């Protein structure tokens, strides 16, 4: 048990949040008398919160690099408005419009990155300015009204489910979803095994083999159960595919590439990073370009989901993403956190909102509960750090 305890304590923030997520899911499952884990509801939660999780990934990277971004909601709103203008009023093909909007997000991110990284204006100020300016730009782009009736293909491709239901594997279940679930489970177990190999060889203490097997089994079971639920509903939502792809790509980038290491280094100790030859300005710049692109992506998804571009689209996205990142283990001083943690943090919030809604708790109270959750998650982290003395 001691080994478990030390292993748990070592990544308490992350594994702790994962455990908390499981507990919360079970809690609401009981409270709502089984409504929470109904296939339709699970699918719904993902559809409703996918874009926040995507933003949380980007926000986590921004926070790891030692910055903050308040502008992402306004940028999402603005790019959504531009997309609607292009597709509905200018008859631009939807694929081209999507690419243009992602490029627009990159340009806006580059603009912010320029002021933050090269001129040295605090990111709080620069992104606050953008938050105001692009909310205004959204209203102007929409000429004060809203633009609806987006091309149906655009909506289908971004908000619907993956095809592949009748391959004859799972009976009534969605076949491709089952296959994806199996593949994901295998990938997850493989990464665990690989990590453990490197870890036991050079990392000293690792989880003993029996416990490790239990851990892998738990992970695989969780993934399979989750995809089974989706397969029982309408299948794999496109937004979840996007999210999973982003999670893997960014997880890999942050952990295994030079750029990722440099982002951690700049956020953890900027002077030391600079003296180690890290081009810290370029790193900060790229982080904001990336955040711009992800904001635009979220903007496109929300526009497709609402089937209209409205002036208030994306309001408070930045706050939800920031909360997700901090609940998921980011440190206010930078240099700490994982993109997986951000997704866990975002999921915790999503499940709580959903559970409270199912229980009929009004939106005002939901917000109060979320606020308390954020405060206590970070307070727990600060307390924990003091105790470990790190």
């Amino acid at each position, binding site marked *: 048990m001691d080994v478990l305890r030390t292993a748990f304590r070592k990544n308490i923030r992350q594994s702790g949040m994962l455990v908390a997520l499981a507990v919360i899911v079970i809690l609401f499952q009981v409270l709502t008398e089984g409504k929470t884990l109904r296939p339709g509801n699970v699918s719904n939660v993902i559809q409703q919160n996918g874009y926040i999780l995507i933003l949380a990934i980007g926000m986590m990277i921004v926070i790891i690099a030692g910055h903050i971004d308040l502008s992402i909601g306004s940028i999402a709103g603005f790019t959504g408005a531009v997309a609607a203008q292009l597709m509905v009023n200018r008859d631009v093909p939807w694929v081209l419009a999507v690419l243009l909007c992602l490029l627009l997000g990159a340009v806006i991110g580059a603009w912010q990155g320029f002021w933050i990284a090269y001129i040295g204006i605090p990111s709080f100020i620069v992104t606050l300015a953008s938050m105001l300016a692009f909310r205004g730009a959204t209203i102007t782009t929409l000429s004060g009204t809203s633009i609806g009736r987006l091309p149906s293909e655009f909506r289908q491709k971004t908000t619907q489910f993956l095809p592949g239901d009748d391959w004859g594997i799972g009976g009534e279940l969605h076949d491709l979803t089952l296959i994806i679930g199996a593949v994901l489970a295998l990938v997850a177990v493989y990464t665990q095994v690989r990590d453990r190999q490197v870890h036991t060889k*050079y990392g000293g203490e690792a989880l003993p083999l029996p416990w490790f097997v239990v851990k892998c089994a738990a992970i695989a079971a969780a993934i399979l159960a989750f995809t089974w639920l989706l397969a029982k509903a309408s299948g794999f939502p496109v937004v979840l595919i996007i999210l999973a792809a982003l999670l893997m790509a960014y997880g890999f980038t942050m952990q295994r590439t*030079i750029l990722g290491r440099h982002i951690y280094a700049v956020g*953890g*100790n900027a002077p*030391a990073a600079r*003296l180690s*030859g*890290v081009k810290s300005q370029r790193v900060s710049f790229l982080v904001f370009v990336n955040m711009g692109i992800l904001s635009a992506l979220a903007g496109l998804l929300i526009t497709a989901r609402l089937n209209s571009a409205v002036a208030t689209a994306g309001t408070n996205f930045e706050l939800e993403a920031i909360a997700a990142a901090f609940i998921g283990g980011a440190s206010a001083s930078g240099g*700490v956190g994982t993109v997986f943690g951000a997704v866990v943090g975002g999921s915790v919030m999503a499940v709580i909102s959903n559970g409270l809604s199912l229980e009929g708790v009004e939106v005002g109270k939901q917000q109060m509960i979320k606020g308390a959750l954020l405060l206590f998650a970070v307070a727990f982290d600060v307390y924990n750090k003091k105790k470990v003395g*790190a």
Partner: protein
Amino acid sequence: MVADLILEMRDITKTFPGVKALEHVSLEVAPAQVHAICGENGAGKSTLIKILAGIYPHGSYDGEIVYEGTPTAFKDIRASESAGIVVIHQELALIPQLSIAENIFLGNEQATRGVISWSETTRHARELLQRVGLAEKPDARVADLGVGKQQLVEIAKALSKKVKLLILDEPTAALNEEDSQKLLGLILELKRGGIASILISHKLNEVAQVADAITILRDGKTIETIPVPTRGAVDEDRIIRGMVGRQLEHRFPQRTSAPGEVLLTVKNWTVHHPIDQTRKVVDDVSLTVRRGEIVGLAGLMGAGRTELGMSIFGRSYGTHISGQVFMGDVEVTPRTVPDAIKAGIAYVSEDRKKYGLHLTETITRNVTLAALDKVSQRTVVSDREEAVNAERYRKSMNIKAPSVASIVGKLSGGNQQKVVLSKWMFADPDLLIVDEPTRGIDIGAKSEIYSILNELAAAGKAVLFISSELPELMGVCDRIYVLSAGRLTGEVGREQANEETLMRYMTMNRG
């Protein structure tokens, strides 16, 4: 009780993890006495003062402090200040945006029921400014004053707290000759008014000029207290002898040096202060380091050693840098840190926590940071390769940690230093500039660091070794350059090096 002493510190011992900073130190200060404390950097002066001021609270050290005849137990600065002990630190604790009067009464506001009386504040400030001889208006902004005048504001602030024992830590370090004399005059003036002072200073001529008694610290121990019966009875040479008069122990690993061709050549290197851009921090310095050679860089605090090292390392410090840097016959003069690393230069900072390490990261990630491309293919880092290399250094450098996955922040100072050195050895530079690599680490680890530097030199690398500890420079280096106030004042070979000579060069052309 000895009633004729205002302060008696008895048998003070203070230990930090891994280091004994003070060992049975005693200090006796008579009323209205100017008592100087002298010692090399790291001798324990600052620690002693921090104990006296309550910054290291009662209970965190062993020994006894008797102040005005009664034993005391200060638990923080407020406690020591309310007893009349005020420390003026080297880095002034003034708030530049506030006025003189606001600064003087900061934390001690002239107020009734929380409402500040500005007329009282101004009137009192004016009185105090008169006492310290500063002809400025109380509502002048501190930012607009020179360093000398700011120092006087600090003293006025101390007087406002009814100071009985004033402690000045290197008060004249940043002052010019005229301001220094003014300040020393003020100290004597306060003494006539019954205020005792403890003066910590590297400027021995000033110490000889004003001190009534001089206590010498070395390696955390009291060496002696020299009474000064009449002005000029004790001269600088006498103090230097006390500060350095030690036997060289066998702490330094033997080495046979075999200098090869010249690797680093620095020509006419001049660096200006990043904020005060008219001030030359490094002034026309030229030097060379050969392959296989360990060259020392000696100097007192503020002599410009770190600034020289960092400015060579891709302009990491300073503005308006001029001069040339050659590696072999090729001029490199790196403009950025990546340039410097590419040219084969590495710089190991004196402040390893602030500038050297990522404390929340593992040993592995710290070791590979400066040369990630060596363990990567097409920008993808191989964590196996990384761990293999980190493990190699953990073994060869004898880093005491359970594994390379250990978090660096939890290691001891000596082991952290080895991690920083590993990082730069992994980057495989030709020239290694090491800045105070043994600061704050224990004797055993120090000796290991010396061995590592020796091995680097034996492998044909060049080492530029910045240190405040003269014995270590003399024990390790083939040659020693001496800087004073930004200028190169001497170059001493291994055979000619002794502490008296070095100390003389080090104090040359200072205020």
